[in-house]
């Protein structure tokens, strides 16, 4: 399978990466190179094979559902580009 330029732009939009025309066509070539490379997986007989969900044979550990941490609002917003009173600030979303 290969991607056309419209698909590149659609995927870029899904990935939230701004891509202009020149960039899109450069990406198209390289993405098709990668997609061509992974094509060889179609040779493999996967009938009846379970997809991998965990690479180690251990049951995932569980813990009691309780609060173990918190009161860190200051730490959480400390690295944000724009904040106000422990809120992350973003451009206006609702008119």
């Amino acid at each position, binding site marked *: 399978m290969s991607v056309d330029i419209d698909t590149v732009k659609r995927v870029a939009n899904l990935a939230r*990466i701004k891509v202009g025309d020149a960039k899109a066509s450069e990406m198209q070539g390289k993405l098709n190179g990668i997609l061509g490379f*992974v094509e*060889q997986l179609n040779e493999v007989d996967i009938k009846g*094979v379970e997809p991998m969900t965990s690479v*180690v*044979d251990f049951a*995932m550990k569980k813990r009691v559902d309780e609060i173990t941490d918190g009161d860190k609002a200051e730490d959480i917003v400390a690295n944000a*580009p724009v904040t106000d009173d422990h809120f992350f600030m*973003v451009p206006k979303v609702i008119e």
Partner: protein
Amino acid sequence: MTDLTSLTIAEARDQLANKTIKASELTDAYLAAIEQDNSNFNAFVAVSAEKAREMAANSDTRIAKGEPGALEGIPLGIKDLYATEGVHTQACSHILDGFKPRYESTVTANLWADGAVMLGKLNMDEFAMGSSNETSYYGPVTNPWRAGGDKSSAALVPGGSSGGSAAAVSAHLCAGATASDTGGSIRQPAAFTGTVGIKPTYGRCSRWGMVAFASSLDQAGPITRDVRDAAIMLKSMASPDEKDTTCIDLPVPDYEAAIGGSIKGMKIGIPKEYRIDGMPEEIEALWQQGIDWLRDAGAEIVDISLPHTKYALPAYYIVAPAEASSNLARYDGVKYGLRVDGEDIADMYMNTRAEGFGDEVQRRVMVGTYVLSAGYYDAYYLRAQKVRTLIKQDFETSFNDGIDMILTPATPSAAFAIGDEEMAADPVKMFLNDVFTVTVNMAGLPGIAVPAGLTGNGLPLGLQLIGRPFGEEALFQTAGVIEQAAGHFNPKKWW
């Protein structure tokens, strides 16, 4: 007085313990080496000198009190993807500009709890996506090795993504370094720089506080000057961790104690599928040399087959980008790092991510987004995860047949030049660097790269040992045998 930076971790530990040297002297020696030589390599992207001196002074106090930790006073470099409280942590990406975490990763916290000293943060491929350290926002790293040890010959890559870690260890800018491995990012740079690198079993080290690339593949590990140092560092890095549900609750063995034990009767598998087309004769010869060394040490050499080997790399280039596209969704210009304004919020996201991510990262996020998108999930992602099951079964079959360990070359070539045009033009060519290492991540197994020889023009080459799940002790034991036979490899100092 001997050059303090030439001491291995084990040697420095012993000299600190018997008070021949002081931790503060050792740290000062490394800070001076970084100051003088880092510009030749671009290995460190941030140096935490003040913190290092403070930590070293505390080490001296603990040593004086007779309470040293296992890594007391040992100066380490930390790959830029480990969260270090209050210190530069950007996974060498522009999008994490200015990020200084308010918390410490579990792995680095373990190192500091054992008394280690942090010298600073090490260069890497952006978000660990690359095999040459050339995708870093901070520019490429130069390998301390040159063809013929000649300053006038081409500057080489140190491999990647842990290129800064490998170069810094090889050039003696730190005693040891943390690294991380998603498809070969510890073992390939170790092989390119004549250093030792181990990627432990998935779940052996906590991933908490490591910048995520592909969560089902990422694993922490050390790069060091020799096998013993790798054993010492991994012992401190590994631990169970309540904060990472994929981190396994198993006690961490004393890896160092495994070194020096006999490998008589151990069954070493030689997989025929690793004899790839066009493999340089030097790599073939190195592999044969490794086989001979292990046979001479009493191991039994067994030819084995891992039939799905060739599909590991293509399956990886679906699974890893898919997980990356999801993990990297968090970089949106809101919570940390770079923000590039736009007409509205979606435009702000798109501008931020276009400017903040480099080309390689953008490509992988795009591939991941595509293979997970409606209508393509089954054809790509689900198929790749099934192939992954088959790759793991290949290894299990061998281990069930009594194979203890598998010996392969670590890389299909020695280090190549910075700015290699063929690799820059074709991403798939760059991917092929990881052809021998990526299978191990796909199966979650431990793998160690050990320097084993030099090419005709004097560049290091490594061998890889692949172990059973949580079979790190046997890996150190056998890697020690290879190291003893091969000797140590240091770059000729051209800088």
